[in-house]
């Protein structure tokens, strides 16, 4: 082909190299905008040895991706390396010319980023995109490259490689696309693989399988990795070493075991204390939010960047001059950027807040009986007409929720969680079945037909605080609007007082009433959303992934706030989430959904300990846990979640279930299992016999001192 590049030979780099694969020293990167220079990364050092996996963690905006793009020398038109060096196998990457750089990219260093759909070319077939890599770098023929691509696709455990190679990206599911992106990165067997949040867009069970794959392939090809994530659990599972970033700087780096168990930086400690661990409950290990907010690059404080949020801050010492990275005596190449690393008593237990006793559960507030919601969709969206298909988004759901109770609804994308929320809210009406609020049926009343009392008694907190506030109305106005809609307060003055009370309730300063939404951080916006939801004395609040769009350090604060208000107002909270750690932490009962079905329903303890529904078991195993003392049973689910348009016959989970063989007579493939009662308040939808269920081992076990 005319377009094919001539073989860009190797030879840019020596073949043998003993030192680190990647050595970043004192790297500083800035972006230049019209208004100012934004220092995104400052004085960042780290090195990756051959075959080693280095984890890079930190909250969004701390500069992780900038480091990765800096290594790739692809910072865009306004980004520039303003100091330090990046050496790859001893060669300074900044000194390479355009041709040399091109020879290294793809062959020596490959990168994978977050959204698989966006990183594949929609107008090119998968095969075409894969074979390009070795054809450019190794000068091999099209047929050879094709054979290599087929091998690689099989290596990333995709079925039917030939068909996959001939498809377009949109014909694959998200998980399959991510595997293709991995295959593409490994086509020329690079020595260094940079992964930028490679699984954030995926569901937990798919994520677990992809992470597993990355680990295996890394071992198989001896690839060094720079693994970027905000999820400490994931880093623990994949990496040998870790580097924690805060506000553009590396604050602590060391071997995984050292940093997880003997952390020497207050930020690392605070980070660990703010995430829930599924092994522990709230009384043993309450969450502790990091106070304050992440500083913007141009608003960093003098001295230690973490100073304003640090519990160990000492005025006159921490705020004097920039803090340098210093070695920690114990541990392997363990370093921390804290002046007081040696003074702090790291073993001191966390100062726990006042213990809250769980409130008494009241009467049943919400009862859902045999609820079904089907959508009719045109089989071919563009041309309309023709036959329609039925998407069974919710399939005979039944459950009840009491006053002051937190019922968690967990499941992966497309399982029907949001549809359920919409039916409750009246945004959709049910296809059949009943939804009873305090005994009266509401399933057929759309939101327009609901009276103010009903509207105010079921409220919602949305996943994305960024879209739900009106950008041109002050915070106070928006809350007052909600009060007006709910018919609360006799006069404007009364509503204003109530609005200020609500701000107190969600722990926002009263002065925020005058602010516009854009002047608020994500966590603060979510607080406004919560204030609005509780404005009318809601009986039920549906929180659809309320914290998943927020940074780790503010998640804890928002979660605690939600629970605090719930306790005070005796509200029933329906907490929709895919994050089992947080579900375990805050909920009283759990409802597990899969493909529109409730597969398990029980108290939190019942659901989190055996016997499990096979899907719950896999879900538990998939959750990354940031605790080195936890041993997990490894259950990798094959394949993707089936499409709700085309569900499998029989048990919805049968395509991926590892217990299926234990059910005699192929029952799983032909019959939808009935809901069965295992214990008081514990139901599962599975054909497995009692003795098989009883033989299940716990997924998560503690190995103290490990």
């Amino acid at each position: 082909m005319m377009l094919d590049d001539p073989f860009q030979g190797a030879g840019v780099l020596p073949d043998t190299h003993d030192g680190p694969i990647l050595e970043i020293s004192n790297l500083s990167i800035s972006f230049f905008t019209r208004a100012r220079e934004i220092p995104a990364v400052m004085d960042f050092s780290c090195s990756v040895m051959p075959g080693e996996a280095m984890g890079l963690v930190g909250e969004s905006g701390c500069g992780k991706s900038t480091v990765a793009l800096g290594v790739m020398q692809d910072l865009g038109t306004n980004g520039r390396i303003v100091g330090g060096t990046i050496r790859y196998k001893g060669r300074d990457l900044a000194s390479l010319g355009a041709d040399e750089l091109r020879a290294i990219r793809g062959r020596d260093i490959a990168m994978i980023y977050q959204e698989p759909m966006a990183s594949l070319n929609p107008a090119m077939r998968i095969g075409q995109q894969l074979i390009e890599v070795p054809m450019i770098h190794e000068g091999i023929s099209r047929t050879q490259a094709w054979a290599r691509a087929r091998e690689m696709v099989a290596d990333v455990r995709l079925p039917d490689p030939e068909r996959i190679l001939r498809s377009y990206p949109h014909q694959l599911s998200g998980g399959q696309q991510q595997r293709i992106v991995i295959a593409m990165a490994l086509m020329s067997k690079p020595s260094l693989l940079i992964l930028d949040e490679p699984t954030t867009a995926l569901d937990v069970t798919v994520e677990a399988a992809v992470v597993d794959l990355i680990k295996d392939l890394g071992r198989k090809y001896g690839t060094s990795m720079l693994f970027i994530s905000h999820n400490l659990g994931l880093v623990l599972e994949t990496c040998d070493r870790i580097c924690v970033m805060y506000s553009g700087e590396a604050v602590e780096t060391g071997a995984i075991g050292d940093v997880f168990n003997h952390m020497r930086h207050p930020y690392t400690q605070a980070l660990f204390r703010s995430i829930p661990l599924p092994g522990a409950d709230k009384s043993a290990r309450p969450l502790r939010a990091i106070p304050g907010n992440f500083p913007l690059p141009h608003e960093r404080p003098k001295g230690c960047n973490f100073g304003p949020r640090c519990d160990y801050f000492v005025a006159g010492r921490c705020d004097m001059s920039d803090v340098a990275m210093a070695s920690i005596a114990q541990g392997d190449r363990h370093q921390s950027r804290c002046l007081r690393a040696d003074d702090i008593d790291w073993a001191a237990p966390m100062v726990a807040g006042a213990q809250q006793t769980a409130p008494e559960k009241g009467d049943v507030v919400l009862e859902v009986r045999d609820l079904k919601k089907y959508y009719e969709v045109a089989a071919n969206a563009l041309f309309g007409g023709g036959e329609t298909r039925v998407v069974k988004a919710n399939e005979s759901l039944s459950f009840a929720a009491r006053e002051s109770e937190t019922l968690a609804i967990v499941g992966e994308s497309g399982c029907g969680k949001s549809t359920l929320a919409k039916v409750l809210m009246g945004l959709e009406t049910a296809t059949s079945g009943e939804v009873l609020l305090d005994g009266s049926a509401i399933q057929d009343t759309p939101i327009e037909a609901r009276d103010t009392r009903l509207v105010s008694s079921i409220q919602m907190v949305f996943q994305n605080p960024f879209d739900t506030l009106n950008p041109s109305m002050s915070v106070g106005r928006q809350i007052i609007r909600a009060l007006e809609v709910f018919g609360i307060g006799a006069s404007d003055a009364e509503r204003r007082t109530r609005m200020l009370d609500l701000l107190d309730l969600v722990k926002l300063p009263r002065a925020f009433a005058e602010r516009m939404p854009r002047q608020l951080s994500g966590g603060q916006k979510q607080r406004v959303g919560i204030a609005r939801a509780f404005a009318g004395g809601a009986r039920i609040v549906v929180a659809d992934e309320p914290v998943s769009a927020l940074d780790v350090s503010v998640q804890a604060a928002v979660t605690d706030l939600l629970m605090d208000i719930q306790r005070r107002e005796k509200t029933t909270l329906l907490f929709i989430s895919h994050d089992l750690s947080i579900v375990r932490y805050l909920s009283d009962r759990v409802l597990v959904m899969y493909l529109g079905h409730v597969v398990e329903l029980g108290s939190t303890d019942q659901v989190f300990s055996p016997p499990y529904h096979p899907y719950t078991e896999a879900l538990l195993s998939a959750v990354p846990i940031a605790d080195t003392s936890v041993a997990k049973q490894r259950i990798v689910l094959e394949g993707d979640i089936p499409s709700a348009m085309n569900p499998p016959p029989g048990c919805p989970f049968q395509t991926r279930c590892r217990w299926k063989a234990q059910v005699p007579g192929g029952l799983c493939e032909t019959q939808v299992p009935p809901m069965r009662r295992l214990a008081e308040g514990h139901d599962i939808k599975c054909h497995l016999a009692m003795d098989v269920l009883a033989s299940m081992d716990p997924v998560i076990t503690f190995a103290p001192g490990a």
Partner: protein
Amino acid sequence: MAFFILRRTGVMILTALCLTFVVFFLTNLAPNLEKLAKTQGNARMSDAEVTSWLDRNGYGGPLVVRYGEWLGVVPGWVRFDEPTGEWRGRCILRGQSPEDADRFCGLLQGDLGYSTVSNAEVAAIIGGRMALTGVLMFWAFAVMVPTALVIGIMAGMREGSRMDRALSTFSIGTTATPEYVSGVVFIILLASSQTGLSPLLVDWGWLESGTLFLGSARSAMDGVTFWNFTLPVITIAFYGIGYIARMTRASMAEVMTAQYIRTARLKGVRFRTIVLRHALRNALIAPFTVIMLQIPWLLTGVVIVETLFNYNGFGWTLVQAASNNDIELLLACSVVAVFVVLVTQLISDIGYVFLNPRIRIS
């Protein structure tokens, strides 16, 4: 797909009916008819004579009925003419007896009527003129589309570069220049023996004598040559180039910032290959629609350019028909124009679907 095309065609026919009725209404306004009567009959007719003339020639009666006759869904008018003692009617040829004539004669029967000015069947006139315009449009497109796409791609592939700024300025310049300005400028610069380039070239001995290009396209009706046809073609193309180029540039610039382009770059693909293999197809999806929708705009350009260069195509005919009050011819021209506009829209919708794999196979 078949259903989609069927539905679009249905909507198209409905639109065409509405539009032709509007044109029919406007051309059949009382003053136009009066002018027609006076030119065809006697310039000094009295008002009563005008009315009787119109009545005798089938221009009386309700507008809707006459529209129906013109369409061919209402039987053509038939009446006995006292002064000449003959049967006359819409469908009756001179000397024919009413029994032999067709009952319907309108658009649906392929009968576009009779041009009162050129004394010929409208269908015959339009056919030849359309063919001439077709040739002009073909060449205009052949110049315009490749030029515009190349300019757009080159400008968009490195957004903000000097080349981008230069090409974008050029594009904005061409869209801001109407055909009657650019046409005149081209004639002065390239087709005059007194001014512009031609006398210079003659002085330098590069051109024997005369002009670089011909300022009139009359001779192109018999045979197209580089010399006689370049100016009308580039005048039409000039206006469209800027518009299409700007759309292509926007689309290209957007594609170049996409993640998958970064992926290609980080795979070590060289820039030229990125542009040609990874970006081009994605970048062309949006301009394709624009190119198709450009055809109706070109029709207005055709009117001006054909008049300016005295090329007797469709546009020229339209102008003539309008100024001569040649009602039937004018109506036929509008039908053709409406038809072209609607068909290009249909094509652009279908083409969009074919270019975009995400829509095609879902």
